[in-house]
């Protein structure tokens, strides 16, 4: 079971309070009517799904009910950091770049 630090509550809490919400830093396109079908598909469905460092979105569902970001290793499940919405991760995999 994961032990997660909520950046808003500033406390360590049990995993059961949270629900994962997939890859982080996906921006909704600002010019939707100009997008091709391929670009829409990419935004809606295609994901990095990395084996290694993963930046992901979590919801503190049974707590402050706020979304926040997490950088986690998808193989060891080690949580490297959690950070607030709008913030940039301080730990990134060099080969992956930052999206």
């Amino acid at each position, binding site marked *: *079971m994961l032990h997660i630090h909520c950046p808003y509550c500033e406390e360590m809490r049990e995993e*059961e309070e949270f629900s*994962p919400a997939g890859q982080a830093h996906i921006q909704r396109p600002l010019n939707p009517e100009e997008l091709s*079908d391929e670009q829409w598909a990419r935004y*809606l469905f295609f*994901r990095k799904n*990395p*084996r290694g460092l993963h930046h992901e979105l979590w919801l503190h569902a049974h707590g402050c009910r706020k979304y926040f970001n997490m950088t986690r290793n998808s*193989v060891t499940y080690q949580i490297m950091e959690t950070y607030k919405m709008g913030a940039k991760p301080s730990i990134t995999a060099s080969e992956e770049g930052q999206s």
Partner: protein
Amino acid sequence: MQQYSGFGLLKHSLSYHENWQRVWSNPTPKKHYDVVIIGGGGHGLATAYYLAKEHGITNIAVIEKGYLGGGNTARNTTIVRSNYLWDEASHLYEHSLKLWEGLAQELNYNLMFSQRGVLNLGHTLQDMRDIERRVNANRLNGIDGEVLTTAQVQEMVPILDCSKGARYPVMGASWQARAGTARHDAVAWGYARAADALGVDLLQQTEVTGIRRKDGAVEGVETTRGFISAGKVACVAAGNSSVIAKMVGMELPLESHPLQAMVSEPLKPILDTVVMSNHVHGYVSQSDKGDLVIGAGIDGYVGYGQRGSFNVVEHTIAAIIEMFPIFSRVRLNRAWGGIVDTCPDACPIISKTHIKGLYFNCGWGTGGFKATPGAGHVFAHTIAHDDPHPLAKPFSIDRFTSGELIDEHGAAGVAH
């Protein structure tokens, strides 16, 4: 290939079973193969078998980084059924079920395929409406199915709590009599043995580290045992499909999640069918060895660690105990996790790609085992003809761009 039979067993007993032929060989990689299959699980081995048997392509290598059938093939809960809602999906799974029915004879290998039936319970009015809709859709597609009342369910499974006082009372169920279970390891081994006999090279302990391309077509694969040239490369890597795709700069519409399952200590025969419940989310069957085989749901986060969180196990056990109070003091023996590659529409991808000679069979999510023969069969056709098999056509990766998704979420008996 040495034929297996009751007589053979008797004959070999005279020599203390010391002279059995090796089931498959352990070859040194050749420099070139017509087709290289990445992933030696059930799907990969079935693909190799059908390519060799039905399409006459025998210069094939199956490259497996661990051992054959050691991934999700060995980790699932062995359920085989075809009662899916949408035409595209039900045709594909029914194709597979039909192949299952003659597979043990065809492969001359005991798959312990047992058509003991599958019950999908309904606990709410909406559940029952969905069940009726699905059973009717199945029957229109020529797939067997029945809607059962609570009394019929109780008669079939006396130990199921069908009382009105249950937290989620059973209101009925769908029943597919031709569904059942099979021994998962045996499926991989049976296909491996048959493929090996047809000349397929099974390269174990060999990991693909890269895919070499030239002018938009594949040239071969880099492996831990050197470069292997290939006319076509077929990726059947389940949870690691995105990792392979990244080698050619592709992204897939997949997320890899841990999926957990567990078995109890062996018990005397008590449950002679498969019981699944979408609503309380648990499913259970009893293996021939006697252990209860229980499947959990996926963990919501992306994970490649082949293990999940304990709260998911706890949730599943709560559901099983709610359905079967008699199991409350049964002890669990083992629990494990596998990595499943889930698609946004809960349907697989069996597809060509924009790179010539590169094919993907992935995205089976939580329900790939039942499709092993069918998926291998249609994927082999897709590779051999460089054109999708009619049953595989709707499962092209292009559906995420065109919007022709096949939304099987929850439409199937349980989320798996």
